[in-house]
């Protein structure tokens, strides 16, 4: 294992100049259109879009979110308008957000990932992709792709065949070995890995004995999970040569510096932006302050 180092602020990522290390996480910013309308993207390096699947998806039945008081459980169900509408309606509007857009893609089979990326290649709006391997793999009994490193390799190879644009593979912390999955993704041609997706959580109403969410489990995010992400970023960045994008638990500038120390090249903010749309700018101001103190 490499020793964590002093953080350095990256000036570019994937060869694209960036104003700072903060990016917007998938699922918490749409396609950046709302934040662009409010002029809140100035300090955002990259916008990672909500997940796109081949066909439109209505998403899960309500309820879809639950705030435990200490963190947020979500069970959105990949609600999205599908490739066709994304190409015809969404991307033309996202063309003017003024920041590089990375499209998060999801699928139930390896072929669906490939088909989604292949279709999106028709657009010149986006800079790259983020491959969501946390979704259930229909060909493997519904277990998430990301749990099995060889399946991560299979998805990565299929996406690599479809595009010359850079892409990241977003790993899952649930049940698999993120280090091995990251190594497979690197070997199969990924340009980065994102560490990591939400943690599996559950809320049960003990009075009735029923889960709050219809699917039982949900994705959990919270600033309290930051140390888990720091550990994941450190372990993964020690094991691969491609850049690591940190995601999870970030709410202030010092969190960003800690993740850069752990080995991240870019840091996503997600749940924190739902609460504070201006969080990237607040973090940028915080970074200037902390780095001036040195």
């Amino acid at each position: 294992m490499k020793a964590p180092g002093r953080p350095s602020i990256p000036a570019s990522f994937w060869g694209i100049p960036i104003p700072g290390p903060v990016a917007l996480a998938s699922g918490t910013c749409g396609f950046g259109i709302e934040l662009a309308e409010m002029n809140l993207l100035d300090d955002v390096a990259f916008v990672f879009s909500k997940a796109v699947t081949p066909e439109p998806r209505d998403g899960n039945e309500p309820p879809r979110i639950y705030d435990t008081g200490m963190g947020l459980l979500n069970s959105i169900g990949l609600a999205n308008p599908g490739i066709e509408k994304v190409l015809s309606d969404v991307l033309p509007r996202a063309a003017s957000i003024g920041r590089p857009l990375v499209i998060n893609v999801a699928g139930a089979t390896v072929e669906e990932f490939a088909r989604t990326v292949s279709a999106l290649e028709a657009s010149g709006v986006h800079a790259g992709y983020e491959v969501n391997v946390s979704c259930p793999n229909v060909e493997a009994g519904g277990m998430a792709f990301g749990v099995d490193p060889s399946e991560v390799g299979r998805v990565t190879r299929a996406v690599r065949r479809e595009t010359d644009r850079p892409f990241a593979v977003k790993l899952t912390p649930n049940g698999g070995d993120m280090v091995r999955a990251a190594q497979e993704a690197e070997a199969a041609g990924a340009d980065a890995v994102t560490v990591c997706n939400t943690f599996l959580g559950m809320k049960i109403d003990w009075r009735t004995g029923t889960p709050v969410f219809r699917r039982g489990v949900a994705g959990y995010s919270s600033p309290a999970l930051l140390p888990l992400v720091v550990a994941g970023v450190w372990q993964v960045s020690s094991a691969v040569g491609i850049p690591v994008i940190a995601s999870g638990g970030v709410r202030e500038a010092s969190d960003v510096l800690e993740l850069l120390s752990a080995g991240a090249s870019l840091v996503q903010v997600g749940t924190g932006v739902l609460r504070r749309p201006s969080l990237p700018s607040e973090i940028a101001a915080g970074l200037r302050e902390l780095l001036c103190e040195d």
Partner: protein
Amino acid sequence: MNGGMMDESALVMESRFVDDGIARLVLEAPGIAAECRPGQFAMLEPSPGAFPVTRRPLTFSGCDRSAGTVSFLFDVVGKGTSLLSEASPGDRIRLLGPLGRGYDITPGRWLLIAGGMGAAGFPFLLSRTGGGLVLAGMRSSRGIGCLPAGSRLATEDGSAGVRGLVTDLLVDIDWDAFDSVAVCGPAPMMKAVVLAAPRSAAHRIQVSMESGMGCGWGVCGGCPVPSSGGGYLSCCRDGPVFRADCIDWERV
């Protein structure tokens, strides 16, 4: 729809309990006060600390543009609303708004139908419609002080007004006498009211839906409302006020 939203650090002007478990907040937020309309809402940050991680959606119950203040009336139901109710005058609360689509304020006679604290937004609505008949159904007499003067009342325990549900008050209503109908309350109550209304009135009924929300400004997908056209509408962006016939009540 939410392009005009502001995130104001609002000064608490007034914070008190108006009844058992019902809190009232008056916040100085001149930008939001200048723009907000009845039926719209704001996301309030319960604490400047890390937790809870999301804000709480509350509908505007009043707005004083000249004073630059907005007011909220809410049931304390959990950690977030409990923290908000503990705010003291002089504190600051981050306030994101105005959010969502409010009532379509059309001229003519208004009928307003509330279930419980669904009445919270009615004072603001009445200030813009120039009045209307208010029907309210409550569990008990708790909270009746929040109702606009002259409201017709039903309580489940019979402690005030007639004993029964708000739908029992609909029996005497001539729907054709009203040009617009506003309904706000728990989902089963709104569904019962919409189903009790004659089919010909459906397009005149506006319902204010409630949902848990992650963001309040249209990006998280956490507040689905079943659409009569299939799939879901977004409560925070497409609503929270909808025409009753836009909603698939079978799935509510």
